[in-house]
Every structure is written in structure tokens, then in C-alpha cells.
């Protein structure tokens, strides 16, 4: 048994469960950097002397690899335990930055695709799901709060990485001034920034791996006492994907993410276009940048606040709110968003908080449906919906907007077809959520279920 195995990291009786959220946050704050990748875009375009689209692929590859690796490696993560998974994630994420840096330094774009995109993307997938199952097991009474804290970190990671990356690029290239429009850092500064970030994140994630423990009795899944779903369900990942509930929830997540991306992708030009009079907008470029910042905060806080609320009101009603209220808010944005800046910002803030909340609440929803037996692995498979939405969302929005012109030169009415399409997407998600019922007993893992019942009986007898 190695020190990385699940059996080796079983917490002693006095171990505080409040060490687990910071361990999870150490990982999620690090991998959340991926959402700040755009901070490098201009400099990478100049360094490789290529198009924005070619650089955009780096991020797209990373997100697709996140979804694929979470789906393929979810069962491995579940069986290996959080420490081994966090270590693997830290190494992939760190090596991804190093290989990416080598690509920048040598002018080989394919190395950046391979490093940051493929290797780093695998680190993202493993890292994203690594603490989720453990958190749910430590906080069976508040799974929404627990996973909300960790997944909030993924949103928070971008808030840290963006200013940190700008500072590092300015440190390595004194001519780089991030606040100047169109400023680009040299290739050498970029490469050094990647190395520095890779080292910082690796160390930070390893601290998380050192802190994490599984709850007493959870060193071996076959003998652990699992929390069943709301109807007593304990379902394995291989069986969960054969249930309609899994696929209804897949559609729910896909629709929620697609709709959120509809705004996030175009946030800065969109707010300027909504308040345009002729060629001038009443919203300055700086204010539009501020709007992106406000949305980042809403995205992050929505993950914690709404996911925690789901512990009180239930998972299904929470998604009724995300998708049903979200649908109405999207409609109001399309019809009345241009009436005032306050209305526009308020609507967008709530919509994006629902987008973040949708990510953070889904592990607890899975726990309610399938129990904790292999909830991490099931979560990994569900994240393919995120990868699919990451491709579909921008395609839908850009496809519709391309017909009317270039964002940044449009007016509010030009956005209406795209926003109304998102209303339709949310309606599909809303109906899909309503279709989710408790999982049928035929899908339960009979052996695990019977053994678990025995363990619960024995424990209750011992208490008496």
C-alpha cells in the first residue's frame, strides 16, 4: 500500500472535516486558471504570428479534454482516492504548462496544443472531479454546500490568474503594460510566465493532496458505509449511464451551460451594443471590461450561494429556478434589456449566477439520485455535457450573430434572435429537469445495497 492509496489516507477519529474544503479549493483555484486563458490571447497571437482562431483552439482542446478525461478516468479517480488523483492532476497541470512554455519558446504551436491543451486538459478533468466524491462523503448533511465551496474555487481561480498573469508578464517584459489596449508581451516573457505559473500551481495542488483525507471507514469502497440516494439508491457508474435520469440531467447541464455561455462569450461587446446610439456606445470599453468582472463575481458567488441553498430547498426545485426563472430573465433581457443599464446588468448577473450554480449543484443532485457509491465517476461522465456545451454554445451564438454583423458594431435588436434561441434551450432543460424521477430499483447494485443495509443495521445496533 503506497502513501497515495485511499487506504493510507483514512482520517483518524479527531480529523477536522473543515480541512477538506481548503484541500479541494487548493486544486480548484489552480485549475480554474483555464478560464483566464484569454489574458494570453493577444500575446500568443503575436508570438506565433497566427490567427486568434488558431490560439482559441488551445482553450477549446483543454475544455474538451477536461470533459473526456473526467468521463474516462472518473472510475479510476473514485477507486484510487483523492490524494492520488490530486497528485496526478497536479503533475498533468504543471507539465502542461512546461510543455506549453517549450512550445512558446520554440515557436511550435503544436507543443502548446499538446502541453496546455491535451496534457493540461487531462489535469483539469482529473482535478475537477478529484475532491467531489470525498467532499460529499465528509458532508453527507450538506453536500450542496461542500461541493459549492470547491466548485466556487474553479470560478475564483480565474479571478486570481488573470491579474497574476498580467503581473508576471510585466515582470518578465518591462515593456508590457497590461492596461494598454492591444498590449502584447514578448514570447520569452510568455514562456517564463508559463513556467512560473506551472510551478506555483503544482506546489499549491500538492499541498491540497497532502491535506486531503477520506472519512473514517471509507478506505475500502467494498466495506464502506455509503449514503444512499433519496429512495435508497446505490448505483454504479456503469449502470447510471443506462438510466433515463442520467441523460435527463445531462440535458439539464448541457442547456444550462449553453445558455450561460451565450452571454459570457460576448459580454463586453454585448453591453456596448445594447446601449449604442449610431456608432457610439454610452458604455465605454473600460466599463464593458468592468461588466465582465461583475459577471465573474456573479459566476463565482452563484456557485456557493445557490448550491448551498439547494441543501434547504432540494435539488429539483433549485434547477427549476435556474432554468425556469433563468428562462424568464433571458426573455426580459431580450425584450427590455436595452431600457436601462441597471436592468441589463441586474438580469445578466442573476442569469450568470444560475450558470455557476448549475455546475456546483450537480454533484449533490447526482448523490440524491444515485447515492455516494460511485458518485465521483458518475459526475465525471456527466461532465461530457459541459464539453459539448462548450462547443455548441459559442457555435449557436456566433452562428446567429455572424448573420447580422460583428459584435461590437451591432444594436440590441440584433441580439434578440440569439437570446430567444437561448430561451428555447432553457425551456428544453426545464422540461428535462421535470422529467427526473427517483431511479428505479432495477438499477441498484444489489450486492452493495445489501451490504450497506447490513452495515447501517450493525452501526445502529451498536448505538443502541
Amino acid at each position: 500500500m503506497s502513501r497515495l492509496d485511499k487506504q493510507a489516507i483514512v482520517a483518524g477519529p479527531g480529523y477536522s472535516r473543515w480541512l477538506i474544503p481548503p484541500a479541494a479549493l487548493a486544486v480548484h483555484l489552480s485549475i480554474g486558471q483555464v478560464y483566464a486563458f484569454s489574458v494570453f490571447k493577444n500575446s500568443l497571437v503575436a508570438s506565433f504570428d497566427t490567427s486568434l482562431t488558431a490560439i482559441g483552439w488551445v482553450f477549446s482542446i483543454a475544455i474538451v479534454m477536461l470533459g473526456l478525461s473526467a468521463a474516462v478516468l472518473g472510475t479510476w479517480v473514485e477507486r484510487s482516492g483523492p490524494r492520488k488523483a490530486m497528485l496526478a492532476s497536479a503533475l498533468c497541470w504543471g507539465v502542461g504548462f512546461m510543455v506549453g512554455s517549450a512550445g512558446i519558446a520554440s515557436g511550435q504551436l503544436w507543443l502548446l496544443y499538446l502541453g496546455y491543451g491535451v496534457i493540461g486538459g487531462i489535469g483539469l478533468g482529473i482535478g475537477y472531479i478529484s475532491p467531489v466524491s470525498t467532499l460529499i462523503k465528509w458532508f453527507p448533511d450538506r453536500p450542496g454546500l461542500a461541493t459549492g465551496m470547491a466548485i466556487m474555487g474553479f470560478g475564483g481561480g480565474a479571478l486570481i490568474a488573470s491579474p497574476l498573469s498580467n503581473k508576471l508578464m510585466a515582470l518578465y517584459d518591462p515593456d508590457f503594460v497590461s492596461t494598454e489596449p492591444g498590449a502584447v508581451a514578448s514570447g520569452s516573457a510568455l514562456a517564463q510566465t508559463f513556467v512560473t505559473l506551472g510551478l506555483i500551481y503544482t506546489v499549491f495542488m500538492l499541498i491540497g493532496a497532502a491535506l486531503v483525507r477520506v472519512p473514517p471507514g471509507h478506505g475500502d469502497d467494498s466495506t464502506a458505509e455509503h449514503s444512499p440516494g433519496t429512495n435508497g439508491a446505490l448505483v454504479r457508474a456503469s449502470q447510471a449511464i443506462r438510466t433515463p435520469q442520467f441523460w435527463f440531467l445531462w440535458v439539464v447541464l448541457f442547456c444550462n451551460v449553453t445558455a450561460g455561455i451565450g452571454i459570457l462569450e460576448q459580454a463586453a461587446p454585448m453591453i456596448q451594443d445594447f446601449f449604442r446610439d449610431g456608432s457610439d456606445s454610452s458604455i465605454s470599453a473600460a466599463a464593458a471590461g468592468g461588466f465582465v468582472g461583475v459577471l465573474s463575481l456573479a459566476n463565482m458567488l452563484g456557485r456557493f450561494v445557490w448550491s448551498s441553498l439547494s441543501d434547504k430547498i432540494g435539488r429539483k426545485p433549485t434547477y427549476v429556478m435556474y432554468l425556469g426563472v433563468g428562462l424568464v430573465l433571458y426573455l426580459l433581457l431580450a425584450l427590455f434589456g436595452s431600457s436601462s443599464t441597471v436592468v441589463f446588468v441586474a438580469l445578466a448577473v442573476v442569469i450568470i449566477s444560475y450558470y455557476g450554480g448549475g455546475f456546483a449543484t450537480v454533484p449533490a443532485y447526482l448523490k440524491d439520485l444515485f447515492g455516494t457509491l460511485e458518485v465521483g465517476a458518475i459526475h465525471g461522465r456527466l461532465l461530457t455535457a459541459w464539453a459539448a456545451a462548450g462547443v455548441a454554445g459559442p457555435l449557436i451564438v456566433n452562428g446567429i450573430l455572424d448573420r447580422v454583423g460583428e459584435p461590437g458594431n451591432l444594436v440590441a435588436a440584433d441580439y434578440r434572435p440569439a437570446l430567444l434561441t437561448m430561451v428555447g434551450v432553457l425551456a428544453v432543460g426545464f422540461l428535462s429537469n421535470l422529467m427526473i424521477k427517483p431511479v428505479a430499483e432495477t438499477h441498484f447494485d444489489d450486492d452493495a445495497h445489501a451490504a450497506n443495509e447490513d452495515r447501517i443495521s450493525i452501526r445502529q445496533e451498536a448505538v443502541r
Partner: protein
Amino acid sequence: MSTDDTTTTTSPALVTLAWLLVGIPLAYGLWQTLVKASALFTG
């Protein structure tokens, strides 16, 4: 990084330190974003 098989309670100082470790960078990111976001109301 070995098994915790003792019954000693986790030190509150360790819990505080762990939260500070993640809380300080997060607070830095939040502050930087608030400064940027303020441009929406002043810019």
C-alpha cells in the same frame, strides 16, 4: 502523508492556516476583480 490512526483532534491552527492558504489568494483575486468591476459604475 501517512495514515492518521491516532485519536488526536486536528489543531484549530492547522485549520486556520489551511483556510488562509486558499483564502488569501482568493481575496486577492476578488479585490482585483472588484477594482476592475468598479469601472462599470465609474467608467
